[in-house]
């Protein structure tokens, strides 16, 4: 039922309709996955996080509210799970993934600069890094990113500016 609105889907999901849930799943998988990835820096972890988000939605479906935006609800759950998750896995995933990613970068002609840039990015505080990645690598608009974090587009803009500023300092040294 791909052309149903979120609200219709939520109503059906409350009635335990699996097809509606499937549509919701496909509709929000990618944005949630990228959201998780931009913050955890790990695709494995992101897969698990998205799975857990939807598990929670399904388990608590009778408490869903069709008057409220399911989108921001999903991101809120995502946010909570990511925090839990990063506490547990902080050191491990970061190391594994950044090693892996360096590999891929090495094929590019500007490899050296990119590697440096990537390293500098890893050092950025998470809230700047994730916004920066979502905007640059994933091509999300400021408006979309603002929705994910439930902040204003101005805040997103500021964070990207701030990220650029820190990166410049890092890379000029």
């Amino acid at each position, binding site marked *: 039922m791909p052309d149903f609105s979120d609200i219709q889907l939520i109503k059906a999901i409350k009635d335990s309709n699996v097809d509606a849930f499937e549509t919701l799943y496909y509709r929000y998988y990618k944005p949630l996955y990228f959201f998780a990835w931009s913050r955890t820096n790990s*695709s494995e972890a992101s897969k698990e996080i998205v799975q857990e988000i939807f598990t929670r939605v*399904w388990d608590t479906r009778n408490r869903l509210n069709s008057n409220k935006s399911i989108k921001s609800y999903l991101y809120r759950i995502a946010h909570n799970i990511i925090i*839990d998750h990063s506490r547990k896995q902080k050191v491990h995933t970061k190391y594994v993934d950044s090693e892996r990613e360096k590999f891929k970068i090495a094929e590019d002609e500007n490899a050296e600069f990119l590697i440096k840039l990537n390293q500098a990015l890893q050092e950025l505080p998470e809230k700047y890094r994730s916004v920066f990645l979502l905007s640059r*690598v994933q091509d999300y608009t400021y408006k979309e990113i603002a929705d994910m974090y439930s902040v204003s587009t101005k805040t997103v803009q500021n964070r990207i500016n701030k990220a650029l500023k820190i990166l410049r300092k890092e890379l000029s040294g």
Partner: protein
Amino acid sequence: MIRRKLITGLLPKKKQKLEQWLAASDEHHRQEQLISQIWDESKKLPAPPIPNIDDQWRRMKDYILQHNTAAGKQSILGKMKAFFGYQPSYRLAIGFTIIVLFVGIGSWYFLQTLSMEKITLANAQRSEFSFSDGSTVFLNSGSMIKFKRNFSDNERKVYLDGEAFFDIVTDGRTFVIETQNASITVVGTAFNVWSRNEETRILVKTGTVELKAKTAQEPKVVLIRGQQSHVSLKHAPTAPEEVTDFAVLGWMQGKIVFENTSLKEVAAELERYYDTTIRLSDRQLYNRSLTATFDGLSLEDAIKAICISLNIDYQFKHNVYILYPSKSR
């Protein structure tokens, strides 16, 4: 940051201003170039591999099938209604309903006897559940409990990681709670289990509880009303100890209670309760001990209270509270 605007386009007026600024010095030029480079190159950073969503959905669906009977509390009739009432393709719906009925009844029986139920509470959540035998459990923030939906004929067994208060109904079968490192056996009683980081603490409110380390059958410790004991790592349980009050159980009313609790544990508890991040800047703070009860305080007030009573300072930066030894004196 005028430079970033360069990329998204500038009003003529601002453009002029930028050019002036660039002309002012070479340093400005270099900065501008670096920023542009960062901006352009960042485009080439590796994007994450996109997982096969179909595979992921299949996993999700497996989960749903296994848990279909749990949360919905829906009769099959209710399901039929949902199908008929909602489905746009009517003809299919009827066929589906019949299949769902058969599959549903089959798997319902199957899962009733076999499947495990798992309840995980995130931070800042507390909730009460009941088991199929009528016993109840009140689960604290950041805790997980796992159990068979239908207990077996001679034993009721659950697995706990975190903190929970159990009120067990007597029905002839023993009730066993397993934690990472301990095993707790009871008959009919109410008691609190705290189990985190390979430490398990028991406080009995009514009845009798038997506690042993998971690794060894002996020694066992039998606790009665108003007694507590704990198992650390693989050590034997400590001797029963009388408590003067049940203040520790305050968490069920949303209070946070510390009794000679190390600051390290205090921080962990507050993180779970408020869903926040707290760091201790210095190891010497880990074992400072705190006795306090917080009832409905905001996070900030709680932190302030701790700082005052332990004579330490705090900072709030990037959404993290950092506690550090006081600089005065």
